[in-house]
């Protein structure tokens, strides 16, 4: 422990050698860094900690994902219902799997686009790759839940509007 402290002070001394005033902006920078990192980590982004979320037990009576999520995550449920996927009844479990993880599809709040999308959209993904090269995920442009068929009355989908 002492060695480490020695090493730390030595390095500091070497950097600030003969320029003692440098220690003030450096300290300020460290403080500011600490301030902002605390801010961004303690109050992180959207604060949806999906990595930690775990689904509770589901009884047979609650087996319809949509019926329950219409109440507990109403916006997501309505988005899905109005989206192409909802309209065409590509239901929750097709991409997200079963909450107990015992299904054929691995359970995930954020399904891996490489596997989930592939099952139906393989030709389109192929076209995208040859046209634009490899990209991360599909969701950033083609929202899984917001690619609209309905709420914009068959007009342009949200993804296309965004692109304009």
């Amino acid at each position, binding site marked *: 422990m002492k060695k480490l402290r020695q090493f730390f002070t030595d390095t500091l001394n070497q950097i600030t050698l003969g320029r003692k005033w440098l220690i003030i902006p450096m300290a300020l920078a460290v403080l500011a860094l600490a301030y902002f990192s605390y801010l961004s*980590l*303690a109050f992180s982004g959207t604060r949806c900690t999906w*990595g930690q979320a775990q689904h509770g037990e*589901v009884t*047979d*009576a609650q*087996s*319809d*994902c949509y019926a329950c999520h219409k109440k507990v995550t109403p916006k997501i449920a309505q988005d899905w219902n109005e989206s*192409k996927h909802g*309209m*065409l*009844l*590509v*239901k929750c*479990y*097709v991409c997200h*799997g*079963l909450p107990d993880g*015992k*299904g*054929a*599809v691995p359970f995930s709040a954020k399904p*891996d686009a*490489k*596997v989930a999308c*592939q*099952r*139906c*959209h*393989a*030709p*389109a993904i*192929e076209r995208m790759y040859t046209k634009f090269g490899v990209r991360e995920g599909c969701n950033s442009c083609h929202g899984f839940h917001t690619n609209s*068929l*309905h709420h914009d*009355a*068959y*007009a342009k989908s949200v993804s296309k509007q965004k692109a304009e």
Partner: protein
Amino acid sequence: MGCTRREFIKYSAAMAALTFLGYGCGRKEAEATPDTWVKGVCRFCGTGCGVMVGVRNGKVAMVKGDPNNHNKGMLCLKGALLASVINSPDRLTTPLIRKGGTLVKATWEEALDLTATRFKQTLEQFGPKAVAYYGSGQALTEESYLANKIFKAGLKSNNVDGNPRLCMASAVGGYVSTFGKDEPMGSYEDMDSANCFFIIGSNTSECHPILFRRLAARKQSDPSVKIIVVDPRLTNTARIADLHLPVVPGTDLALMNAMAHVIFNEELDDSKFHGKYVSFKAMVDGKPVEKSLEDYRTFLADYTPEKAAAICSVPAESIVQAAKLFANSSATMSLWCMGLNQRIQGVWANNLVHNLHLITGKICKPGSTSFSLTGQPNACGGVRDTGSLAHLLPGGRLIANQEHRNQMEEIWGLPKDSLNPAPGLFTTAMFAALGDTVRAMLVLCTNPAQSLPNVKKYTANLKKSTKFLAIIEAFADAETLKYADVVFPAAFWCEREGVYGSGERRYCLIEKAVASPGEARPSVNILLDLATRMGVDPKLIPFKNSADIWEEWREISAKSAYNFKGMTRERLRKTSGLLWPCPTEDHPGTKIRYSRGDDPMVPADHPDKYFFYGNPNGRANVWLRPHKPAAELPDAEYPFILTTGRVIDQWHTGTMTNKVPEIRKAFPAAFVEVNQEDAKRLGIANGDNVRLDTRRGSLVLSARVGEVCRPGLVFAPFYDAQKLVNELTVDAVDEASKQPEFKICAVRVSKA
């Protein structure tokens, strides 16, 4: 949120690690990709989507859509989860024989010998009328053709029927009576150019999701496309409708006659078309009689929109609007399914849809077609085309017609007039006679103990000791196994090779991708072994595998209007399906039938653009069909109407879909949909147990209260083997097609 600094650091530590895992995921999954992809067709509905079966280490690892087939790589949720069905541990792996009331394992020799002996005994003792074959729209074309030949040509028994009797018979009746030949004249491609869709009696979005996707995409690409949905339920299909007509079940004949009335009154008919290509007909005393356009108009005069509105309980303006949308669009496509077919006026309802197309000339043109949707993957190709029904012979020939019989005798190399001239028993009659006049039955690839209407009546016969029932089945939990004397384990789906024919006349080869489990064998080989042991003339069945059978069937088709001689096995291997007629190996297949230039069956020098060669006069028939109510109407005692159907997740009797954990969890048990107003009146809340009583049985189901069903109507799906909804349904059949009226029966609804 309270969290100490140390907790915070620990949290960041965990997140750092999880971030790495996020990347690790993609790499891991990429390693699990299949080694080889084998082309096939989806095992479920009649849409016939092409699939690619991903095989890894001899097992099906993944299923994805075939980009070269009509579905363009898309699959519905059932298709996408097909891998769990074929990998299910719940498969039959050895033959079973009933001994002392229970099914016990047996060897193939024992099972085959027992079945052949029992069939032979029955034939000797009671004659060919006492044996029967009950086939399926899920069996391969080769299997159906072979079974048909074994029974009709080999055993001289015409008791060959199949579950398409329960789903497609009325559509067959409709096409044959109107056009002279079965099967739709259009293809799915018409969906891309239609400007108006008339969907009647079909919940396309749940029963044919990939076709619904196609028509939704059409609607999205062109906002001027109009969709009319006629359905007593506000289904998911109705969500994209511009006009939804929630008619009282069983009143659509009045509706369609009223639409025809409006079309003539508003002069929206195409007199050039119907003057040249249509003849008007009516049934008088059981015989078809020629009628004139004037007769037809007089007949329609009775069906004013106001009168129809009163019958159907929808506004008269909506009927007028529907007729105008139908007739004013540049191309109209009608789609229907069980809502019209499973009715005692099924054939008539089918005729009336064709009528609308014929009087407006919206037929046999791109986007203009009357298109019947199919429920099973091979009802069209396997059963309708091969004539594996009690009144048919292959290639659209009729048993009752001596000329047709003689043609088949010549083709099959039989002595003249040796085929049994009496049509056999149709499905419900066959099961009604089981144990009585029918003593031995072979069931292939279907589950009648759950799918027959008024099923208790027929399971009583299945229990009789005077019957012998052998079934060829892949899954150990099928309801019908309870009544079987011998069970043969069958290779499933892509465990053997064969052809499926989908709803648009598309024949597509399922290639063998994996080996079948245990001792399971392809049904073709089981049928061949049985036939040999039953003493069927070996010259009739000179086959080794399904490819041999296909060769023979392909040659035979050349002698009928169902000509697909050009579809060699090699060609089917290379392509993702071809549409017949396809007479030569360089013919690309036919998108539109009866049209000169498109259909190879119409001579290139034919004087008219359209030629309905199925009818002797070359014209299509417009039938004068009056409105007729359902077999069992609601009354004071049973005031509600019960209709049955499907949900998107589950397929038919659920023997396959229940193998998928996701689906089993999503729809564990059958339920009953009740209208919210009715529910309020009866004191039923969502999730309550509701008792349904009909004259045939009663059932307690959990309620789903909402606005899906119109008031006075309740709906229950039939997939649940624990809650057999078919114990409630009525088994009255259509006079012409013999298809039962699953869709309408009177029911009492009360809180349990």
